């Protein structure tokens, strides 16, 4: 029993975000210069990042620890926030999305994710997840003038709540078995009570698998994601294709690798078929898409399939691989979405892949950037995508999942086709219609930042690999 309040140092970054978000939401009506919000978000993201590193190692009671594991994920989230803040202004301006609310909701969502990444308590994990989810539901529906935005939000909301119920059930059973919601304590209790062969524990693990599989969009719990991605404003799609997914993986790492370490064989066996299904379904479905947002949605499903390989490996290397994968994925995926954002005009969606036909002729720079992002998504060296894939495959292989890796590489070959198709349209077909693109400095900076990341980490990933591994060292034995 505590006699005094714990130190709040550990949650300074989150506090900062919440405060700035709330202020933004409040003053939205009175500030007409929208750039202020963008700048505020960028500065906040950078400040929060600095705080994340400064508060590293601090704890907040038993519930929360700003450990290295969390630091890495928070870096990803803030990176995502930074990139999305850069890509959003033009698009939001064009479609009349309120900057203040938009950025506020983004920051709330990021707060939720950060809580998920650093939590040591299932309750806080649930609340962080809900905070993130609720913010994202609203973000998806922000473009309520468009039916598809609302429809996407509604579907995402319904299915998300449905999945939350499974998560709660899983947590309830786990709590019932161990008498605690603290993640480390659960692990200890499971070992102490020798529950590693208990069917009820497996049930709980299975329900966790269902819930997290929904969050990171593993097949067959992925079905919300193409619809939500397509319906959402593209700036939000960019955000939710990386952020919540990474948060889901962060939570997965905490729950599966720490809390449920005793049932590792079981949840591994549950995740393996999901991973295989995910990689192939995502790849196969991406092949037949003509809407680029939807295509990237399926692509992100496939990528989740790869990322989960690191969790399946269940080792320090595996977790580091997943983390690195997500980090690199942020650069390339948001980069790709930035280009899609550029295509949008008031009366022109610019989402059909045929809209990209001949882009290399009309806008060579943009086409080249998209080319690089797409090849990175394909996993062709010397781009970051290859490094990520390599690390993940390596970790899974090391953990003995040979067949899984072979299937993964085959899936990656199938998955290459949709990206190639877009490149093909951009570079090998003549332009059919005039496509107008107005680069604003923000998005240009974002694109440059992303492409630099993709290429730099493609040829010199050493430091970031070391970082990811170091972040896992304290996390896993």
């Amino acid at each position, binding site marked *: 029993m505590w006699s005094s309040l714990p130190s709040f140092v550990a949650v300074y970054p989150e506090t900062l975000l919440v405060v700035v978000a709330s202020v933004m939401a409040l003053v939205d009506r009175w500030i007409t210069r929208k750039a202020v919000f963008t700048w505020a978000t960028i500065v906040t993201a950078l400040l929060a990042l600095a705080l994340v590193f400064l508060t590293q190692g601090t704890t907040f009671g038993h519930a929360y620890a700003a450990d290295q594991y969390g630091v890495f994920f928070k870096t990803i989230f803030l990176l995502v926030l930074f990139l999305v803040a850069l890509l959003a202004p033009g698009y939001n301006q064009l479609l009349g999305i309120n900057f203040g609310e938009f950025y506020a909701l983004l920051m709330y969502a990021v707060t939720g994710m950060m809580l998920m990444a650093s939590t040591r308590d299932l309750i806080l994990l649930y609340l962080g997840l809900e905070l993130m989810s609720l913010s994202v539901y609203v973000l998806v529906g922000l473009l309520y003038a468009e039916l598809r935005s609302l429809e996407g939000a509604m579907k995402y909301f319904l299915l998300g709540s449905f999945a939350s119920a499974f998560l709660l059930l899983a947590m309830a059973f786990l709590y019932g078995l161990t008498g605690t919601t603290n993640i480390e304590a659960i692990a200890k209790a499971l070992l102490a009570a020798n529950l590693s062969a208990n069917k009820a524990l497996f049930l709980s693990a299975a329900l966790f698998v269902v819930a997290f599989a929904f969050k990171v969009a593993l097949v067959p719990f992925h079905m919300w994601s193409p619809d939500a991605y397509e319906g959402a404003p593209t700036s939000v799609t960019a955000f939710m294709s990386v952020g919540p997914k990474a948060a889901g993986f962060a939570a997965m790492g905490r729950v599966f690798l720490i809390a449920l370490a005793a049932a590792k064989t079981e949840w591994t*066996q549950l995740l*393996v078929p999901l991973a295989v299904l995910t990689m192939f379904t995502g790849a196969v479905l991406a092949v037949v898409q003509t809407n680029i947002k939807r295509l990237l949605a399926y692509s992100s499903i496939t990528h989740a399939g790869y990322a989960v390989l690191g969790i399946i490996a269940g080792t320090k290397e595996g977790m580091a691989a997943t983390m690195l994968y997500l980090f690199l994925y942020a650069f390339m995926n948001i980069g790709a979405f930035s280009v899609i954002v550029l295509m949008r005009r008031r009366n022109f969606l610019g989402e059909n892949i045929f809209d990209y036909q001949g882009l*290399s002729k009309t806008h*060579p720079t943009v086409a080249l950037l998209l080319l690089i992002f797409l*090849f990175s998504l394909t996993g*062709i*060296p*010397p781009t970051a995508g*290859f490094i990520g894939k*390599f690390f993940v*495959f*390596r970790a899974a*292989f*090391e953990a003995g999942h*040979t*067949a899984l*890796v*072979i299937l993964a*590489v*085959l899936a*990656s*070959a199938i998955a*290459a*086709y949709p990206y*190639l*198709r877009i*490149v*093909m349209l951009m*570079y*090998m*077909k003549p332009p059919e219609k005039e496509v107008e693109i107005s680069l604003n400095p923000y998005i240009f900076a974002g694109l440059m930042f992303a492409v630099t990341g993709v290429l730099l980490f493609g040829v*010199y*990933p*050493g430091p970031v*690999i*070391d970082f990811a*591994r170091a972040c896992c060292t304290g996390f896993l034995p």
Partner: protein
Amino acid sequence: MEVALRTAEFPLLSAIIWLPVIGAIILLLLPRRDRLIRWFSLVVALADFALTLPLFSWFDKDFAGMQFVEKHAWIKAWHISYFLGVDGISVLFVLLSALVTVLCILISWEAVTEKVKEFHIALLLTSAAMMGVFCSLDLFLFYLFWEAMLIPMYLIIGIWGGPNRLYATIKFFLYTLVGSVLMLVGIIFLYLKAGTFNILEIMQLGLPYQFQFWLFWAFFAAFAVKVPMWPVHTWLPDAHTEAPTAGSVILAGILIKMGAYGFLRFSLSFFPVAAKAMMVPMLLLSVIAIIYGGIICLAQTDLKRLIAYSSVSHMGFVTLGIFSLEGNAVEGAILQMINHGIVTGALFMCVGVVYERTHTRAIKDYGGLATVMPIYAAFFMVFTLASIGLPGTNGFIGEFLILLGTFASKRWAAVLGALGVIIGATYMLRLYQQVFYQEVNPKVAGLPDVKMREVLALVPMLILVLLIGCYPTPFLGFMHASVRALLEHVHQAAGTTLPISEILKEGLHVVLPS
């Protein structure tokens, strides 16, 4: 096999690899003035070629190990280093790559008129990646270059290619990607076993046979597609047919050599026991490629397609030589790779010359060209003869050594392989007759003969054809020490081979979750 190293004082190989990349970056910044761009890339390519010349003269032919070695730590976390070096097996390919790049720029001078800047950037990047493949002594670095080359090549075929290029590029890309990713699995496995990507260290690993067996096939997937071996050859005719001339020349000249080079550098030295055990299937596939590729040539009606299928047949000779595991044959195979690069590259250049004038590749649209374009016909004749393997041309030396060596190791393979020589003469002469002899086809009447620029690109090839044909000793001289060391390594490798059924059972055991 302990591989000796000889470190370079000057980072020559790095300079060779990165000069085109720097050139490409500068090109990116240059204004879109076609003449400027062409001249600039030509200068870069020539400079790069000039840089490779010291390799030729400074190379110590008696030294079996790696020379011009550079090694720097790169990704420490995975023990990856930036590790370059060449030996007698790879040095000639670096030279050839540089030469081919120069020639490709020359032959594209007028053929490529759209997106000139992009074209030359892609060309230079391809060239850099190819040379990187041949110089890498780190498996990761190797794979990086190996895959990186796909992107510019994909663009070269897809943007500047023929009418059906989209299908061809996708096929090319996916085919090679499927092969490569399987190799990636193998590479990861090797890394986990060896704890390093250092090729020279992995060579000494001495894995048990069941591992070697599986890894052999994983690497085989990548190399066989690249070579291409039967039955994974069908991307090649499509890619060749649709590629612009420069693309075809690079494909034929260098790209498909990378597969055979991979067999030599990796399959043989990493998995010697498996290579020995898989010798017969490999020889069989090679023989099938030779004969199948030859026979199918007889049915072709498209100039480029015919030459492409002939590549399948010729590369069958190369793999035949490699997997005969006999010194003469392996040297012959390496020489034959160079030869095929020169000859088939030159043939594609020649086809490009008329294609630029007529925009048709159908054989029936030609006829009597010897009357119309006699100089061109003479060039084509020499390359045809080299392709047939007439003594005095380079093709003969390679094929002869391959068949001779193969005969010493597996007679039936040499006998069947030699049948390919007959078929080769049949389809090439048939082609030559239909295109150059007989009455002048009105469609080609009055075509201008080759221009100076085209002659300039073809003459080096012609000289090489005759030089290697009449005096191959300096070229073969590069290889003796390295090939001998390699084959000693292969033949000394110990390991009990298991029956396939046993291997499969064990493999399933490993792969399936318990």
